[in-house]
């Protein structure tokens, strides 16, 4: 059911100027991400530079919304971007990606990331507790993390690939929103399947119902598995038709991605210049 409804959003025809505007919006909503054991300060600096200036100035492409890194890399990202950067620093935290760590360790990690300069914290929920039925513990951990992250925006990663059913995704979304999440996020990107359109639709509808009940706007971040511009535009259509134009802003919708950016930039160049592009002419993802 969710599959069929999500598939309906892929049927819209978006061409020329609307496509160009949509692609630029995708860039402005992107959390450019590097989450690998081999990350270095140099790699993070490269990512920050790319987020600040994704393409040749002639294409008039906005900056990305944020760079998303491991807690140890936050200070390098902050140093490179400086204070008051248009590009935010997001840090994954709470024992990303598994979350199988003691709560004090997780909270300490969050506090340190924020102290190092993270504007946004991407926490993972305790799937162990969730699947064991201890929903109160999941709620309490999110609430504690919200408190520990202070002024930083909290994104709560449900890791939908491990929650098995849409019912679980819906329930986890509600728990996260009630516990104080600013954003709910599909996946870590380390588990397959990551973000899919149906699972994102379930979460968007949870956000919609939460808004109707409380008047509070919660953001959404699909992450992992969105690799090309066409898919990204499908997501924008789904957001617009489920939540409306209010959510079409980097403040309430983000893409967690790394390779997606280059495909979007190639499509922008194709739309502007008229010829098909090749990856050799774009910086490394």
């Amino acid at each position, binding site marked *: 059911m969710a599959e069929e409804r999500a598939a309906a959003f892929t049927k819209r025809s978006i061409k020329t100027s609307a496509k160009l505007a949509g692609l630029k919006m995708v860039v402005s909503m992107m959390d450019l991400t590097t989450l690998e054991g081999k990350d270095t300060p140099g790699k993070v600096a490269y990512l920050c530079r790319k987020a600040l200036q994704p393409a040749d100035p002639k294409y008039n492409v906005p900056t990305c919304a944020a760079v998303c890194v491991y807690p140890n890399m936050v200070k390098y990202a902050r140093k490179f971007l400086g204070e008051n950067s248009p590009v935010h620093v997001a840090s994954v935290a709470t024992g990303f990606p598994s979350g199988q760590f003691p709560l004090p360790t997780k909270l300490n990690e969050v506090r340190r990331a924020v102290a190092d300069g993270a504007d946004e914290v991407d926490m993972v929920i305790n799937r162990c507790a969730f699947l064991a039925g201890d929903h109160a513990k999941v709620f309490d951990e999110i609430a504690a993390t919200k408190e520990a992250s202070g002024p930083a925006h909290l994104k709560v990663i449900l890791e939908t690939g491990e929650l098995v059913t849409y019912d679980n995704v819906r329930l986890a979304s509600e728990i996260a929103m009630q516990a104080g999440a600013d954003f709910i996020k599909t996946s870590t990107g380390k588990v397959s399947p990551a973000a899919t359109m149906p699972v994102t639709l379930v979460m968007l509808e949870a956000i919609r119902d939460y808004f109707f009940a409380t008047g509070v706007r919660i953001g959404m971040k699909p992450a992992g598995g969105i690799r090309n511009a066409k898919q990204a535009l499908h997501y924008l259509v789904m957001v617009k038709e489920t939540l409306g134009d209010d959510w079409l802003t980097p403040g309430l919708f983000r893409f967690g991605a790394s390779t997606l950016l280059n495909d979007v930039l190639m499509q922008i160049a194709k739309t502007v210049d*008229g*010829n*098909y*592009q*090749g*990856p*050799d*002419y774009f910086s490394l993802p």
Partner: protein
Amino acid sequence: MSTRLDVKKTYKLFIGGKFPRSESGRYLPAKSPAGGQLDNFAHASRKDFRDAVVAARAAVDGWSKATAYNRGQILYRAAEMLQNRATELVNEIARSTGVSAAKAKREVTLAIDRLVHFAGWTDKYSQIFSSVNPVATSHFNFTTPEPTGVVVVLAPDEPSLLALVSLTAPVILSGNAAIVISSEKFPLPAATFAEILATSDLPGGVVNILTGKRGELVPHIAGHMDVNAIVDGAGVPDISVKLQAGTAINLKRYAKHSPAPADWFTAKVEDPYWILDTVEFKTAWHPIGV
């Protein structure tokens, strides 16, 4: 009993080892020289071309890393498959172009021989064209050819099969992947050849065959930034001018071959130097004696 309806085949495109219809849904009728309709064939659009580039790019990595010996085996296998289904192609050429069965058979036989010829070059061209260079410093300095990547091949109208094979084999033998734009006048032999290639162990995407109208695809061929080289055998002056004007902007390699129609049947086109159209030379400086 009612009369049986004739089944007209619609030949499809050959992209990434699969046989899709044109994304545009278009097709054209293939006419016999007398003007009767033989069959239909897909009319490729720029998006089909784009898809073919994606398929070719995906194939380059594995194909260029396959051993030269293995590439030779696979090209030889393609010759075997062609031999096996020669009658089908003879018939296709004869009914499309109106030549006698004997002439069509000669074209198919030569196409088989040409594949065998170029299959032999896979593990030889790099020895022949590499060099060890004298340098003044204490370095061992050598130059070797490497495949350039994705190559677009434009086949002439005639001979529809033999020229296509003769132009494509030297491109793919070094490890490139090719997108072949078939004869515009006689596309059916190319489409049948695609069906033979699909069963020949050639990895999907190494050869992609598009049928349709060249003129429509030319600006996109010249402008596509993920195409590394063009081998222009179409023999159409207007098309050559447009391709060269387009490549002047992005500096992709352009090579033109327009032998006289009769020369396609001679050893003149079994030219190993054609391999050099689509390779890049790499020079390495290896320190010695330090």
